[in-house]
């Protein structure tokens, strides 16, 4: 049986125009630019004015598709990783499928919080190898501002809205996916909660839930600083790649300080850990594809060059995962 490889064809992104600097947040809550910058590295974030997650995902997809002039009828799969869908039905992916007229695509959303893009890319590359059409579209998109408690300064200052997209292609002669390491630890799920829905009906009294995002900062910090260096090391070992053979380590942009700690624990220079969190905040599943698209746009990552890149994310679930790819 012929086996196919999968490569990265194109990247794209879209963020709402509306930029909200830390100073603006001080009008809504007791915080300061200095406090936010020191703890997180965030300077500003983009907050949607009326655009929902599907709008961002559609624009990001169009950005990715237009760069390579891809025939949308050849897209066989669309996965949207999101924890802030417009609705549970129809899925965001269905809306994207319709908007871009990808009439042959199977489309669904994937829920894995901030690890969603990694899980989505991992699932897509495996599915695509066995599907009839050559292209898959993997999108990470969020309107985090919908789920935040804007009276809670410990969480609301951290997040932003945005979407990033990747087009991957099935081909006989090359394969980008070298190794992966994916995990879930549901036992610690309460460390990051968002979008809870109350059970209520004529047979059951209302059990009210706010639906707001809540986070146990210390538990998340411990989880990330302990799990991610191990996950990255594991992927390098199974990919038979030395740490210095990797051109870039793209980590989920949750917090600049945490990324620096992970770099330090791996004895690697933080220059290999590019960051754009200062401009976007934590955009959950969108953070990795947005970062990757920026790296391609500024020429640091050249698709088709053979550069080795580690993509690593972590988040609610708890979920985490690392991919070693060759672009």
């Amino acid at each position, binding site marked *: 049986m012929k086996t196919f490889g999968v490569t990265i064809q194109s990247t794209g992104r879209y963020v709402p125009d509306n930029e909200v600097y830390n100073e603006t947040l001080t009008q809504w809550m007791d915080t300061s630019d200095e406090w936010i910058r020191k*703890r997180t590295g965030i300077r500003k974030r983009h907050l949607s004015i009326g655009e929902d997650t599907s709008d961002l995902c559609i624009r990001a997809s169009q950005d990715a598709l237009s760069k390579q002039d891809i025939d949308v009828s050849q897209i066989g799969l669309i996965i949207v990783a999101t924890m802030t869908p417009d609705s549970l039905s129809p899925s965001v992916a269905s809306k994207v499928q319709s908007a871009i007229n990808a009439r042959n695509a199977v489309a669904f959303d994937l829920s894995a919080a901030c690890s969603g893009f990694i899980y989505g890319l991992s699932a897509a590359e495996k599915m695509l190898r066995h599907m009839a059409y050559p292209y898959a579209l993997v999108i990470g998109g969020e309107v985090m501002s919908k789920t935040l408690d804007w009276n809670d300064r410990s969480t609301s200052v951290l997040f932003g809205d945005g979407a990033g997209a990747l087009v991957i292609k099935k081909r006989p002669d090359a394969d980008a996916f070298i190794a992966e390491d994916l995990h879930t630890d549901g036992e610690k799920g309460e460390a990051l909660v968002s979008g809870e829905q109350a059970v209520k009906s004529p047979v059951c009294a209302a059990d009210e839930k706010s639906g707001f995002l809540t986070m146990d*900062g*210390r538990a998340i*910090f411990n989880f990330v*600083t*302990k799990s991610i260096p191990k996950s990255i090391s594991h992927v390098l070992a199974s990919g038979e790649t030395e740490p210095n053979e990797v051109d870039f380590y793209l980590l989920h942009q949750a*917090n600049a300080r*945490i990324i620096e700690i992970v770099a330090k624990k791996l004895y690697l220079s933080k220059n290999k850990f590019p960051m754009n969190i200062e401009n976007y905040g934590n955009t959950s599943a969108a953070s990795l594809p947005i970062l990757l698209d920026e790296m391609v746009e500024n020429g640091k990552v050249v698709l088709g060059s053979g550069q080795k890149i580690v993509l690593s994310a972590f988040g609610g679930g708890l979920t985490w995962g690392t991919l070693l790819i060759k672009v």
Partner: protein
Amino acid sequence: MTTFEQIQEIIVDQLDKEESEVQLETNFRDELEADSLDLFQIINDIEDEFDIKIESEEGLNTVKDLVDYVEKQVEAQ
């Protein structure tokens, strides 16, 4: 090394301070400008070094608080 000296070394390392700045009565937040993330790291390193679990950073404000807590945990084991 005494418990204090081990803890002092961890704090000096994490916060990039001199030993003279880290004494028993030193308050992390006020005198060493440690924020919550600095404290998380310090606590993690202490947990690893002494093989204990620090449930909460509440009530741990000075180096002496940490030393006392650690010694109590180690004794209990």
